[in-house]
């Protein structure tokens, strides 16, 4: 088992490097830091050239990647253009935790920029994931046990809808119904903007209230898909021979379902949930935009829009690493849960 973990770790590390290379190449070709930083002030050729040298943009791509990775404080850059490097670099490189500074928020370290917003997204995602898993388990189990019942058919139809609906449509609908129309009909309505009402302040109650609609929009789509998946997994497990054996032994139904069946079904379910977790972030982008939630998704949009390469790169790397890490965790959890892998 330990060997398995080590092997997976060793596979994950080169993967992260490959991803970083792909992203770096992409970002460097796509962005134009001079335009971002400059605005109106940097129009003189001399200034642009200086800035180019300062940012290291005149170096070949692989050198730029190297500096990005391990920094350039161990070498000197030629800033004044005389061909002699004299200014020591100040970047420590990604491996030492330095993602550079934001081009838009001048001088602010990228990690800081991200960190300001990250917890908000994590809150949103965490709650959504919990809602998704719990809801899908309940509905999926029920549907599997009461196949073709009315509720099952209704849930199947709803899940197809939820799965096919773009998030923003659902979000807009929910705003329209729960916020706009409720207000019109005199019902208590839900807030749709931001994380809390500035007049009341950032209290737990406020945040919770403001979270309802975004969480609903985010989770509905995945909840629908997962409940179907859990349903079909349970159905498959329930048709296995060992379930027939369990029933032949005269075990009570609850034991057959929750011990014999669920334990087997949890394996593929864990896999799917674990792997999808980081991709909730993508859905968060749209949701955060619509509901003006101050999270990382909106941060990403803003900074892409303004061409802030280091921040964008930082976010992309962070997410990609999260994906890889979650894959690793999921695999390890699966191996731990399945005795056929654990004891071999």
């Amino acid at each position, binding site marked *: 088992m330990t060997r398995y973990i080590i092997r997976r770790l060793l596979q994950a590390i080169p993967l992260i490097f490959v991803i970083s290379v792909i992203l770096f190449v992409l970002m460097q070709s796509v962005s134009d830091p001079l335009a971002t930083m400059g605005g109106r002030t940097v129009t003189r050729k001399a200034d642009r050239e200086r800035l180019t040298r300062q940012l290291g943009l005149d170096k070949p791509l692989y050198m730029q990647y190297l500096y990005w990775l391990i920094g350039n404080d161990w070498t000197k850059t030629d800033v004044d253009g005389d061909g002699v490097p004299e200014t020591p670099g100040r970047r420590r490189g990604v491996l030492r935790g330095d993602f550079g500074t934001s081009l838009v928020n001048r001088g602010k370290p990228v990690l800081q920029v991200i960190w300001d917003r990250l917890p908000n997204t994590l809150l949103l995602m965490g709650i959504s994931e919990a809602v998704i898993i719990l809801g899908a388990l309940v509905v999926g189990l029920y549907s599997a046990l009461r196949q073709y019942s009315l509720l099952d058919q209704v849930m199947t139809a709803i899940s197809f809808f939820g799965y096919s609906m773009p998030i923003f449509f659902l979000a807009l609908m929910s705003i329209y119904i729960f916020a706009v129309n409720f207000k019109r009909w005199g019902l208590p309505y839900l807030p749709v903007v931001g994380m809390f009402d500035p007049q009341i302040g950032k209290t737990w109650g406020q945040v919770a209230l403001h979270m309802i609609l975004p969480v609903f929009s985010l989770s509905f789509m995945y909840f629908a898909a997962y409940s179907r998946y859990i349903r079909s997994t349970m159905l498959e497990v329930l048709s296995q021979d060992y379930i027939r054996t369990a029933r032949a032994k005269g075990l009570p139904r609850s034991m057959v379902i929750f011990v014999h069946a669920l334990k087997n079904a949890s394996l593929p379910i864990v896999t799917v949930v674990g792997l999808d977790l980081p991709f909730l972030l*993508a859905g968060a982008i*749209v949701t955060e935009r*619509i509901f003006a939630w101050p999270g990382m998704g909106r941060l990403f949009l803003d900074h892409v829009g303004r061409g802030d390469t280091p921040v964008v790169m930082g*976010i992309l790397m962070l997410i990609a690493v999260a*994906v890889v890490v979650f894959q690793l965790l999921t695999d390890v959890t699966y191996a731990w849960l399945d005795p056929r892998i654990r004891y071999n």
Partner: protein
Amino acid sequence: MEPAEAIPRVSLPVVEEVEPPPLTFRQLFWRRFRRHKLALFAAGVLLFMLLYAVGGTLVFSEAEANYTDTTLRLQGPSREHPFGTDTVGRDILARTVYGGQISLLIGLSAMLVEVLLGIVIGALAGFYGGIVDSLLMRFTEAMLNIPQLFLLIVMAKFFGGRIPNIVLAGRTFSGSVIVIVLIIGVTSWMYLARIVRAEFLSIKENEYILAARATGTRNLGIIVQHILPNCMAPIVVSATLSVASAITLEAYISFLGMGVQAPTATWGNMLDGAYNYVETAPWLWIFPGLLIVLTVLSINFVGDGLRDALDPRSLAK
């Protein structure tokens, strides 16, 4: 008890105990697809969508769709404007017709790009194996680990303005359409590549491949004539579902303002900025949104039905 002498054997009528001839693949396919009533209904809906988008041009000319009249802005659904008007007074119904054309076009084209890339990469990795496979799969895995929407946003931002408008058959198309098609295709091929690779790996071991080699067929011939036709089923299913995903993705990016730009309309960019008018003009986003949902839903149903009908291993019911 019968006497122990020879009892004349009764001869049976000469009916050959032959099993009914097995159904051909096509017959089997239709039989199973037909059973999926939902898929059939969805296919009907899709057909309607196509007619809507294409046939609608007979009803509305493009000029009508783009005709702005700010005195008519933000009017609700009425007899002259069944879907209402938008922020600059354009008729939404007409716009959904032309927008539909582009959305569907993007869906289909992105699917083609994706399928092409997916098949080429998957086939090469699966067929040659070894270091080629390793490298390609590392690359595929790395791409899979980057969430697609993020990548799309970055690429859309940069490549968005690069391609100029195109004039075709008297109509102007924004260059961003091509950009969107390409970037969606370029970020979606990984799933298909994995499927194709898996199919190649297993089919490659079959003896008829060995036979083909023995008769001197070159590698390309083997790939194209022998292996590829045998893995069409998962490719077809994946391609169908990817049309839905492409339409959805285009809607997402356009909604965020980075997708297809003016003067071309798509269902997606009709939604851009609509959330400012959630309260006041819901028809701005309800109609295009509904059309997107209907189309994507139908494609998903059809894809589901196709998967059941084409998969030889799935149960007959």
